[in-house]
């Protein structure tokens, strides 16, 4: 009961400042004063943890992270926030996400996640990202402070960008622009839907070789095009793919079946594309050795899914990150296109910790530093280390467990995030209704 009261109090405090009802809260103002989070358990995000730590940040950048029991800091002109008994985490990163790109699934007018056509490398998720989406405040309330806005559809879907979960518009919110191109690998197995009994039959896809050869042509021509200094005529599609060959952009390939993964990676290597990432990877356990040898990271689809086959191990999806992590493969977790469920991303790391990765700090890496490394933003974010962005949150308890993931403070580049959201507002409104009686 005490806990309950406390939470209500916190909420009430947050809600006092709300003047209007229906809008998302305004983004926080730039950090003007150095802030020190005092006495919390600090989860660095790289496997380390400091039980009584101090996190100091200034102008949006972490300036120091120290053990409070051994180090004394000069705290004059510093806003100190006591977080004793609480936990400090780096902002959780949600890769391969459609947050900001769709609002209400069944309402077509609110969905901007995929473009028509087969080859759309030039299509950019960045500009469709809606900072006013009501989904965004709900995800940062569970500690998810970054999401990679990802286009879907066609074979080459377009390019993604990594977004911060607080900002006035996409220009403000973007952390890394056009970080990679998305490719849906032609499936080794194709699904056929049976109108007879509404079951799905999966069989070998007979048309895939053709599809792959067409892809190879496109990529080969894109590579040649990239060498031209003044291409005439200018080709927007090939232009947008240039970064793939220099390593400036990742090639994200959606592939699940073991054979698809091998082919996709071999394809990328044969074109000398430096950075290839497997997304989905539901059968990555089949190709652990291959992934390791080729140093290919994996962004897994949501662990909270069913096994793919009747006879597959009941808990294989839950064990998958552990299998890959133990083999030394860089692995990150995603909620794929389930935009509104993204707030449960920390709990996927918790699941991984329950099924194979016994060290919770290692499990935390799956949604923080590993993801940052894969997306190429690890110099900026992903851990609570000096020099990185002060994008972090404080949770009342273990953030990987839903019982205790109660976010009390969040900062994006040092800006205080207003933790109000649509759900809290409705909660308050109707709580008030019953209290009026």
């Amino acid at each position, binding site marked *: 009961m005490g806990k309950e009261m406390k939470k209500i109090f916190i909420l009430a405090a947050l809600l006092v400042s709300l003047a209007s009802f229906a809008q998302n809260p305004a983004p926080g103002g730039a950090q003007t004063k150095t802030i020190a989070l005092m006495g919390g358990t600090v989860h660095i995000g790289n496997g380390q943890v400091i039980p009584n730590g101090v996190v100091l940040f200034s102008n949006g950048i972490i300036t120091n992270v120290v053990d409070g029991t051994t180090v004394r800091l000069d705290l004059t002109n510093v806003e100190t926030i006591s977080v004793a008994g609480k936990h400090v985490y780096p902002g959780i990163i949600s890769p391969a996400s459609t947050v900001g790109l769709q609002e209400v699934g069944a309402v077509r007018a609110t969905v901007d996640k995929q473009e028509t056509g087969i080859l759309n490398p030039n299509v950019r998720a960045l500009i469709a990202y809606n900072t006013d989406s009501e989904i965004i405040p709900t995800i940062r309330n569970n500690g998810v402070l970054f999401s990679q806005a990802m286009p879907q559809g066609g074979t080459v879907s377009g390019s993604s960008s990594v977004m911060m979960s607080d900002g006035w518009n996409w220009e403000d919110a973007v952390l890394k622009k056009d970080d990679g191109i998305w490719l849906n690998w032609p499936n080794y197995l194709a699904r056929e839907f049976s109108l007879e009994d509404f079951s799905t039959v*999966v069989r*070998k896809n007979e048309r895939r070789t053709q599809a792959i050869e067409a892809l190879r042509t496109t990529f080969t021509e894109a590579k040649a095009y990239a060498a031209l200094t003044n291409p005439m005529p200018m080709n927007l599609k090939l232009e947008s793919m240039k970064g793939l060959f220099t390593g400036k952009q990742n090639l994200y390939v959606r592939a699940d079946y073991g054979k698809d993964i091998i082919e996709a990676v071999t394809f990328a290597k044969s074109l000398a594309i430096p950075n290839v990432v497997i997304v989905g990877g539901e059968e990555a356990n089949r190709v652990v050795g291959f992934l390791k040898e080729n140093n290919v990271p994996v962004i897994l689809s949501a662990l909270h899914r*069913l096994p793919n086959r009747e006879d597959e191990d009941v808990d294989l999806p839950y064990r998958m990150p552990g299998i890959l992590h133990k083999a030394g493969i860089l692995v990150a977790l995603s909620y794929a296109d389930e935009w509104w469920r993204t707030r449960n991303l920390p709990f996927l790391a918790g699941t991984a910790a329950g099924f194979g990765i016994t060290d919770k700090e290692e499990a935390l890496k799956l949604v923080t530093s590993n993801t940052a490394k894969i997306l190429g933003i690890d110099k900026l974010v992903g851990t609570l280390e000096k020099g990185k962005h002060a994008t972090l949150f404080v949770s009342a308890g273990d953030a990987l467990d839903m019982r205790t993931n109660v976010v009390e403070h969040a900062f994006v580049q040092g800006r205080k995030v207003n933790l109000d959201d649509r759900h809290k507002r409705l909660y308050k409104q109707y709580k008030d209704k019953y209290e009026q009686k």
Partner: protein
Amino acid sequence: MQKHLLTGLFALSITYTARAQTTFPQNGVHDERPGLYAFTNATIIVDPQTTLNNATLLIRDGKVEAVGTAVSVPAGAVVTDLTGKRIYPALIDIDSDYGMPEVARATGGGFGGGGRPPQYESNKKGPYYWNQAIQPENDASLIFKANTLKADELRKLGFGAVLTHPHDGIARGTGALVTLADDRENMLMLKSNATAHYSFSKGSSTQQYPNSMMGVVALLRQALYDADWYKRAGNKEQSNLSLDAFSRIQPLPAIFEASDKMGILRADKIGDEFGVQYVIRTSGDEYQRVDEVKATKAALIVPLNFPQPYDVEDPWDADNVSLAELKHWEMAPLNTGRLANANVTFAITTAGLRNKADFWANLRKAIEGGLSEQKALEALTSVPARLIRADDQLGTLQKGRLANFIITSGNLFSADNVIYENWMRGKQHIVTNKNVADLRGTWNLTIGQQSNLKLNITGKSPEKPEYQILIDTVKVTPKVAVSGDVISMQVQLNRRNPATTRLTGYRMGTTIKGDGESPDGKVITWSAVRTGDAPQSTSATSTTGGSSTATVATSGTATQPTSNTAATVIYPFVGMGNAQLPKSENVLIRNATVWTNEKDGILTNADVLVVGGKISKVGKSLTAGSDVKVIDGTGKHLTNGIIDEHSHIALLSINEGGQSSSAEVRMSDVINPEDINIYRQLAGGVTTSQLLHGSANSIGGQSAIVKLKWGESPDGMLIKGADGFIKFALGENVKQANYPNPNVLTRFPQSRMGVEQVYMDHFTRAKEYLRMWQNYNTLNVKAKGLAQAPRRDIELDALGEILEGKRFITCHSYVQSEINMLIKVADSLGFKVNTFTHILEGYKLADKMAKHGAGGSSFADWWAYKMEVHDAIPYNAALMHRQGVTVSINSDDAEMARRLNQEAAKTVEYGGVSEEDAWKMVTLNPAKLLHLDNRLGSIKVGKDADLVLWNAHPLAIYARPEITMIEGTTYFSLKDEDAKRDAMHAEKARIVQKMISAKASGSPTVRPTFRRARMWHCEDIEGVIAEGEEK
């Protein structure tokens, strides 16, 4: 004696007279023949139990006149000497569509997906039943058209008669028994209106209803009740040719096409309700549930449609083939043998074969698999005849039966048997010439100047000779054609010169003579003289030159019963099934943290004793007898099994969306105990689920409340004595808001305004219906005798039960306005809404819900997927809970149900519900909502021992069940998981090896495909309606 003779003559003359009568004019001269034939010196299988050696069969006018070893052949009989040959009764197939028009299959849902507007009324012209799939008025004899090509396919196999019917619809009308001869339909028809036919497939009907399996069952049940009413009273009010036909066909043997093992149970249950024992056409998987199938006491019609081996060489691709598919491939040929061993009566059909020509090869596989030849013969002759009450005409060769028989070279079941002739109603039909000269032997061959040649003729039977010429030591294979006694041969006599010598000749006894042309055009003569029997070759078996003492043992069968001891049935018949059903044990769990859900709260270091499937004691330091299994619970948490108030697993279909009310459908008709999600959810701690109808219409169907007893039959899973529930639905799904192509939608309602009226209308009718029955039931005996009982309406029965407080509503709901509406409708009509499910805006009117007494069964944090969930908040459960609503957290999703403990934990995060109360939301509260809290939902002495032992705090993300038990029976045990998986992989590997050998020996294979059953949510509008299809 004289008298006897006289009667005989008299009888004959009558027949002759009858025979001479024909209604057909003859173009030319009439050619009626005596039709008197005697077959002598044959081995005659009179019936499967009686074999006569050296016997005579005498037939006259299409009937058996005499059969025996001492039959005297009357003058004028055409005598055929069948020395060494056999006569069998011709085979009968009683599931045939021979001579029937092709059935167009209806495709597409008609919900605007294919652009076709939904069709709510029957398209059939005339005063028939309201639903096109009910057509008992159809009569196969009226549409029968003989088809020589199709007939020949079956005649070649030895079939002489078939029971044919149009395989179209749920009530399909009557079948006709016909022979397969080439004749006028008038002569082929042995019996019209011989049988009545039913199925679970709506066939060519394009009508919207039914679009689910449970809708099919309900429609048939209602039609049968309507037929009863029509006979009693309805015919005075209206004319309905379909209902009229039901009465007419009621006395006939009834055949139900069920098409899988669960369908057999389902069909039989319908039969029980109406006092009919159906003969059930199956799909060949009955061996997987022999006990339950046997208990129906139904006779079966069984196909021999064995699956082809899969292409399993690539181990990764082979993963796509499930254990169930592998096992069925191995075990399908064992099916008939196992049925015979269990003393189940069955006939065998050629239906379902990809290719009719596979029939004999498959039957021999069945015999290898343990079916005796006698049983096989019964299943093809006497049993089918008896099942359709035609055993006075067909099935044996006793005197007076129709002369439908086949002449064979030897044992019918032997691989090298040849069927020579197939006689139907006394008319000969030649399959293979039985008088083919047996040329096999060694012959001295002279061609022109070359006289030192040898011709060896070998082969399995005289009908399939193989030729070889020896030129010194060089072997040459000539091309030979034999037609009667004329022989032509082409041969290359000189290897180095590929030129052909062409010869024509004739045979006289053991000599062949003739002439021909050498490659250079010169005329040459040639001859061959038989010198002896053929050298022992790989082939030749019994049938030639046999003696009249041939035995009827299984001589000459190439088929030996093979050991299939490794092939065992598992329950259920999918991966992780058990060879034996697990048993209930007496168990003591010691020293665990026990979440009682009672006023004792959470006990630490406590013990729980389970005896006889019930919780026997809860306390500390309990002692146990020696018969009690002790489990150490140190450091672990013991809780009740999770109860999922809203589930769609283990079902064959979800929505009967063909009408706005489908109160008549029962989810218990479509329970699928073989859904792997049952096991997956046991691994997540779920023990009880309410299997709900979907939300496609305002009034859905009746729920099935089951325990997840992995391996049990559908009935074994149902909780006996549980209250009846029914699904209602409001909002976007009901008004089809998110369907494609909205322009074609015409089903009422299309707005929330209409939804209210659906309820008002249906409940008003239900009230009147109840009153009608009340009036009738309160009549005195005499008045009752004079009155007619009202028409039974199974839809209004269900709605009446709601009004009478005997059936309870779970209503799919999102938006507060419509929730309020249903509360008002219920209040005005005097019933209660038991549970609002989903109820994502429940927090807005929790006070009203509490006042009405409705519970709320919700998602923890779902939102944003459609417009009506835009105001859904994760604090919903907490707000409803605090207003006194009984709140449960449900899944509506096969995946989420595996971790409902985590979903419950979210109410701690959102709204700060206490951990104990959060836990009750997935255990005790759903038990209350299902009216089962007197036996489920808490750890209390006397309640069911449905328990889960967790490795950690059950609300923690890190927790997983180590043991899940239901009524003391352990259905999931983490420590046994690895061994069980290993055993499954070993079993798969064993069968894969077998499959690879089968492929090497030439069996055609199919690519690995894997069929995934749909994962159902209540949004899903389609149902499984094509069960009648061959797999």
